[in-house]
């Protein structure tokens, strides 16, 4: 009976025992702190480990102190001692200098200097009633750029044509006012050039017995000619906008203009140069290589300097460009040399089988490039392109050295205003500019990292 009883009532738990709390120090913040901070500095088992630990202690606390100190200085300057309201420089000047700040009080950042001149920092000396044109340019450009950058948005081809062809023309007309009074002789000159090319094509077809050359080449030439004349006509057309000289452009807007012109010109030019450097034709290869290496070998400031003192000597008497256009030319050429190397890297990464497969299908060189290799290569090098653009964006600051009022240069102009004389204006401006540049470059670098991760999912370990 007793046995029966033990079988019917076995000593088995029917419900789970509640889990015990883990030993202290193996979970939660203590564990995290131990693993990530103290594990490296509390190991005294051997002499070597002890030395490493002591070094880590010194280093960790040194680094904490340094970081705290930098943060404290920045906070004290930018916030604690800063002046946030005021209508002129006297709010940021000490009393012994005709100011309103009591003697003995520290003067930090003078933010009214920035807020008061915010329009100038953004737009330079662009006339105020016309500034809507700049904002409109931004509003048109933003969705185009976003459409190209966000992978899930379709119609990349149309988008890039709009951004790389249509948008620059619209932006030029909006920002400068258009109505450039292009001489009639310019139209005639280009008409003659296109006619000459057509005649040459026709003659070559007849002389070398190449059927279809005139029909195929002629289509391209006529399409280019129509586009060319349309652009000339648009730039010439009077939209009723006031003309704003480029010398009045400035601030962040000028920085963006230089950066965008750089990228818009350098991408196609860089692609051509990269193809040229990989070409089978020795002359083309040599010319592209020399071009790329020379531009990459010299600092941008040298070529900007060249643009301001040497370029005027290069052109025939009477032909002159304004300072901005000269700077734009060299910035575009400079960045296309860098872009060419980025694109070349992408082309080299395409497996040879792709080229051979295309050849086996009987595709021509341009068909292979346009349909097979270049799309793959460009996709591969998006991070590289973005990084080049970050470099270009930072490099646009150099135009302030040759006297353009870009985002960096505009402050020098702003500091000349006697109504706003105050001791900390310049540093405030620097802080502000550093923050803006950081914002732009950091977000671009995040984007580049994001694409890199998206493209390299197969390599994750």
């Amino acid at each position, binding site marked *: 009976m007793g046995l029966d009883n033990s079988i019917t009532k076995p000593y088995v738990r029917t419900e789970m025992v509640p889990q015990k709390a883990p030993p202290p120090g193996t979970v939660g913040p203590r564990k995290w702190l131990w*693993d*990530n*901070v103290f594990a*490296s*500095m509390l190991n005294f088992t051997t002499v*070597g480990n002890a030395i490493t630990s002591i070094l*880590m202690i010194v*280093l*960790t606390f040194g*680094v*904490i102190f*340094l*970081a705290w100190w930098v943060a404290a200085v920045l906070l004290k300057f930018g916030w604690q001692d800063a002046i946030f309201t005021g209508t002129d420089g006297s709010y940021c000047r000490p009393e012994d200098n005709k100011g309103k700040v009591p003697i003995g009080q520290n003067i930090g950042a003078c933010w009214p200097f920035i807020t008061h001149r915010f329009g100038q920092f953004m737009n330079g000396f662009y006339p105020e009633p016309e500034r809507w044109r700049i904002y409109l340019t931004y509003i048109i450009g933003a969705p185009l750029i976003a459409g190209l950058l966000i992978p899930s948005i379709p119609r990349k081809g149309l988008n890039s044509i709009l951004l790389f062809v249509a948008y620059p023309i619209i932006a030029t007309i909006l920002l400068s006012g258009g109505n450039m009074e292009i001489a009639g002789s310019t139209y005639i000159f280009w008409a003659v050039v296109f006619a000459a090319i057509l005649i040459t094509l026709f003659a*070559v*077809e007849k002389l*070398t*017995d*190449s*059927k279809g*050359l005139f029909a195929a080449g002629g289509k391209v030439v006529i399409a280019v000619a129509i586009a060319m004349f349309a652009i000339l006509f648009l730039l010439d057309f009077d939209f009723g906008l006031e003309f704003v000289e480029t010398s009045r452009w400035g601030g962040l807007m000028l920085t963006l203009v230089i950066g965008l012109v750089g990228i818009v010109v350098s991408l196609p030019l860089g692609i051509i140069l990269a193809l040229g450097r990989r070409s*089978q*034709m*020795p*002359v*083309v290869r040599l*010319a592209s290589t020399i071009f790329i*290496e*020379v531009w*990459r*070998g*010299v*600092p941008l*400031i*040298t070529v900007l*300097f*060249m643009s301001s*003192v*040497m370029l*005027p*000597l*290069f052109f*025939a*008497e009477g032909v002159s460009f304004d300072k901005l256009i000269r700077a734009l030319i060299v910035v575009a050429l400079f960045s296309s040399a860098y872009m060419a190397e980025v694109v070349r890297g992408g082309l080299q990464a395409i497996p040879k089988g792709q080229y051979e497969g295309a050849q086996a299908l009987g595709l021509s060189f341009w068909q292979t490039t346009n349909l097979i290799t270049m799309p793959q290569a460009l996709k591969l090098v998006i991070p590289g392109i973005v990084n080049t653009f970050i470099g270009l964006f*930072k*490099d646009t*600051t*150099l135009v*302030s*050295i040759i006297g353009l009022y870009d985002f*960096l240069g505009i402050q020098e102009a702003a500091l000349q205003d006697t109504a706003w004389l105050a001791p900390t204006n310049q*540093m405030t401006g*620097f802080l502000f*500019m*550093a923050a803006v*540049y*950081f914002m732009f*470059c*950091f977000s671009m*670098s995040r984007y580049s990292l994001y694409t890199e991760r998206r493209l390299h999912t197969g390599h994750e*370990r």
Partner: protein
Amino acid sequence: MTTISDEPSGKVSLWYDPRVRSMVSQVILIGLIAWGFYALVTNTIHNLERLKIASGFDFLGTNAGFTLIQSLIEYDQTATYGRAFMVGLLNTFYVAIIGIVLATILGFLVGVARLSKNWVISRVATVYVEVLRNIPLLLQIIIWYKILLLLAPGKREFGNILGIGNFNITGLWTPKFIAQDGFWVTGIAIVIAIALAWMVARWASKRQQATGQQFPSFWAGLAIVIGLPLLVFFATGSPGIVEHPEFVSEGSMLRRGFKPGVGFVFIPEFLALLFALVLYTATFIAEIVRAGILAVDHGQTEAAGALGLRRGKILRLVVIPQAMRVIIPPLTSQYLNLTKNSSLAMAIGYPDVMGAGGIVLNQSGQAVEIIIMIMVVYLTFSLVTSVFMNWYNAKMSLVER
């Protein structure tokens, strides 16, 4: 019956022959380039004649008539334009070499710090890298320059930095070593010591490969390089003196300040440029180092651990040699970048090759010649760098088998 022949069946028109097409397009390209050059040269010559600017490099021999705030060789107002340009070139070398050394040290430290298991260190290193590499270098140079000028005491007083030297707005003044007659013996000793250390290292590695026995060649080499010249220096009767900067604190206010020409001075322009270049370039070097170390397969570390190597030895003998192969090519291009970026010195008035060249250009009006000279200087740098890189890549691919 049809036969298959090697000959193309129809006559291919000339235009569709790839060889003819490539010939034609190359001839057109040559023509365009030649025409462009011709137009450039004739326009330039015409414009120069119109503006009455003499061309040629004769102007380098004429008197410059301006002073430069820093020169490593003897230079004053009576020197020539050519000499001024040389001063600029040396100043570029000067800031570039010191900058490269410091940026490499800082960059490696930060790169390793970013991989540290210590959260505080890796996070601070990340913030440093992300912030400084995303702010334009020119802005950084100008900010450092203004900060230095703000912090430094006026010309008539001075402060001290960590016992290294005294500083005020004229710069950081440090003692200077002046070699006297007979110092050349020590100079030769330095060369011999370096050669000796190199030979010892070679002998040690050969012996290790042959017998497996190790020899502390690093410490031995260090001892030779430091010891031998010191020994020779004292044996030849210490031919050299240390000159301390002199600060005049007595007399009329206008006379006070550091005595010019006594001791060695780092001018504020140089320091600001150096700080900015080092801090900026180090962020890029840190990223290269981090990527290089991460590129070494984890299996390598594990295998080395399985062989019983200690952590320090794993790093030194397994990880770093393999990481270096990935690190060095981009590292050289960062060195080149630093050298090219030193041309931004112009913005704060440091007389490097661009700055001094700019002054010569303004004074003499010889724009074409000066710009060509400056470009040749930088192109030579980049050519030398790429020659080195090709040599290094060739050497490394041999090691790789």
